[in-house]
């Protein structure tokens, strides 16, 4: 079991409140995944100023970041490195300086946080309540397939400004992993969800949009899944064709939100007048800015 929440804001007046809203949603799915939690925030200019590229990275202990010549924020186990240089340059600089580090997110707008422990305490180390931005998602994890370590946390962010969170398990991920590897795709972990993220990233890299990429995923992947996938301008949800894992969507003029359970949506402003529905099995729901 895992918990998923995501919030895509339509009303810019809510941008300063994104972190506070996302934190209250995350607290609504703690019981679904008490062993670790990951968060992604889009548009947090505190940590990624306009015109900067950003790399979210799990650094080895006692790593010295002073030579990176960048804006560095430490948030629990995660470090955010931002600099006004091309994204590839910054990623290369981080990888060169810390060859054993695990890069967990890259982009021009994206910060990704991962850690092991109680989700509420982790959210405090991420300073989530003070995050701002236009879109965010979070995942609470009850691991079933791989180890409880920060690297195993969702979201999986394997393409620029992309994130995928997964509740469920894929059953044919090993064969899809081999096919992607033949095409030159490399993997960071043994996690089944990473295969889903790599598959979506390769589709997006071929020019498909989120909706097309997820339709292709539905045709290719077997297993149980509710997925929330985000990109530089999009937010999309899909469930497996027999809908093994829960999901609720709520929409108002001010925001679109999804969560594993309604109780994570209950704190949102205007929820009492939101259009509430369960995404149908196998159907892709997508929104963009």
């Amino acid at each position, binding site marked *: 079991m895992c918990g998923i929440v995501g919030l895509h804001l339509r009303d810019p007046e809510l941008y300063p409140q994104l972190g506070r809203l996302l934190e209250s949603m995350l607290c609504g799915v703690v019981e679904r995944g008490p062993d670790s939690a990951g968060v992604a925030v889009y548009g947090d200019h505190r940590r990624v100023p306009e015109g900067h590229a950003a790399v979210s990275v799990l650094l080895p202990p006692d790593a010295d970041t002073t030579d990176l010549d960048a804006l560095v924020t430490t948030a629990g186990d995660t470090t955010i490195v931002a600099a006004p240089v091309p994204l590839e340059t910054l990623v290369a600089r981080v990888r060169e300086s810390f060859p054993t580090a695990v890069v967990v997110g890259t982009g021009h707008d994206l910060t990704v946080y991962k850690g092991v422990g109680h989700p509420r305490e982790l959210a405090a180390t991420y300073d989530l309540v003070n995050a701002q931005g236009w879109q965010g998602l979070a995942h609470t994890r009850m691991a079933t397939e791989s180890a409880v370590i920060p690297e195993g946390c969702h979201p999986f962010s394997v393409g620029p400004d992309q994130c995928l969170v997964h509740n469920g398990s894929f059953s044919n991920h090993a064969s899809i992993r081999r096919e992607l590897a033949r095409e030159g795709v490399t993997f960071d972990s043994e996690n089944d969800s990473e295969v889903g993220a790599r598959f979506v990233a390769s589709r997006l890299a071929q020019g498909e949009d989120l909706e097309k990429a997820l339709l292709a995923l539905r045709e290719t992947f077997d297993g149980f899944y509710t997925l929330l996938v985000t990109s530089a301008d999009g937010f999309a949800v899909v469930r497996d064709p027999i809908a093994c894992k*829960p999901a609720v969507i709520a929409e108002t003029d001010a925001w679109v939100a999804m969560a594993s359970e*309604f109780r994570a949506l*209950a704190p949102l402003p205007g929820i009492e007048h939101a259009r509430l*529905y369960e995404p149908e*099995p196998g159907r892709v729901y997508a929104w963009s800015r």
Partner: protein
Amino acid sequence: MESMTFDLSTTTVRALNAELHDPSVKSYEVLHPEGAHAVAAGIDSGVAVDVHGHVGYYCAGMNDGGSVTVHGNAATGLAENMMSGTVRITGDASQSAGATAHGGLLVIEGSASMRCGISMKGVDIVVGGSVGPMSAFMAQAGRLVICGDAGDGLGDSIYEARLYVRGRVGELGADCVEKEMRDEHRAELAELLAAAGLEHDVTEFRRYGSARRLYHFTSEHSGSY
């Protein structure tokens, strides 16, 4: 005191359910459920409970004699394993509403998602809207009335439950077939609709049930599963 109010923004579900299991009054109002799980589960007397807001998993589960009304939506497992009494919901219900329920009446004024009435064992379920795929899967006894449409796989591996559908039906499940609507069926359907407070012309409904080919596994039927 005739009625007691529990505000779940300041009281726990555990405190509410402890009171409902040893009731000191006849009727209860529950405020701010905010999607909490197991609201009003395990009632075993004739108390009336009105819940104002959306509830989480297993609301009114195992109900035996209580009358529970939810003014909102419900998550997975609404009234699962109900024995007797009435559960009514004004909004939509998520998956597996009325699962394994032995008796009583479950009224869903909105729609229900997948697996409504899965393994039902004697409950009556009336859905004002539509139901999702795989509803009445392995249904053993009771009646399921659907005033809207039914998704694919309706009544898969059904035993003796009777299904009435007013709208479109997707692909029927294994061993589920359309059956003749006789007078006794129109009469019981009219009773169920009246009990649910819904007005529909019974002649607009069709009846489905078991073809009774899959009661026992035989190798020549293996392709039907």
